[in-house]
């Protein structure tokens, strides 16, 4: 069975400050990892994903995440946040192969204050 733990339910930060949203997973097999973002009253948008290769993956809007197999983590970081980054962020895991089921964490609400 696979599971995802997002350690912080809420993260308030000031604009232009760095931020880290933590995600730990458990799975008995190799995994694919995803970060999705959900703006108020909207569906989920893919932010970035790790499938294989380089353990550091980046999004087009400045977020990055690093896959750490030994610590079973996939933390999301941004060096300088904007007010428009305010949203709910979900970490998800898929154990691959024909297992298409995404297992999500409970989400982290990032609030960027001026």
């Amino acid at each position, binding site marked *: 069975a696979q599971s995802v733990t997002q350690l912080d339910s809420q993260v308030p930060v000031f604009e232009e400050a760095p931020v880290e949203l933590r995600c730990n997973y458990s799975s008995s097999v190799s995994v694919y990892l995803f970060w999705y973002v959900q703006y108020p009253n909207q569906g989920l948008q893919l932010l970035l994903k790790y*499938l294989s290769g380089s353990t550091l993956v980046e999004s087009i809007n400045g977020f990055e995440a690093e896959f750490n197999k030994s610590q079973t983590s996939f933390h999301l970081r941004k060096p300088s946040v904007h007010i428009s980054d305010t949203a709910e962020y979900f970490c998800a895991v898929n154990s691959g192969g024909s297992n298409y089921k995404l297992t999500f964490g409970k989400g982290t609400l990032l609030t960027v204050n001026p």
Partner: protein
Amino acid sequence: DAGVTQSPTHLIKTRGQHVTLRCSPISGHKSVSWYQQVLGQGPQFIFQYYEKEERGRGNFPDRFSARQFPNYSSELNVNALLLGDSALYLCASSLGSWGTDTQYFGPGTRLTVL
């Protein structure tokens, strides 16, 4: 290209009623998955369909059913609605049914059961 579309946007039903939710995948995508997102939680997997066949089912009662049509659109049906069925229902489409296939989410249908 149009993204994943879902209808209706909002729905209000009473306990014991039946509901049908609809989803149109991204053009060319053959797989549709359904997720339930209760307020304050991450999405939970309900079903996946690929090429009109059910490929997986989450831990939901038999009151939940789904199907996929030849044009790859999908319906989610819920019978004998309970208060606890109130949630955002998300549809996601992907090219195939493998773990490496990114799932793209629609805006969701907000179901309220009174």
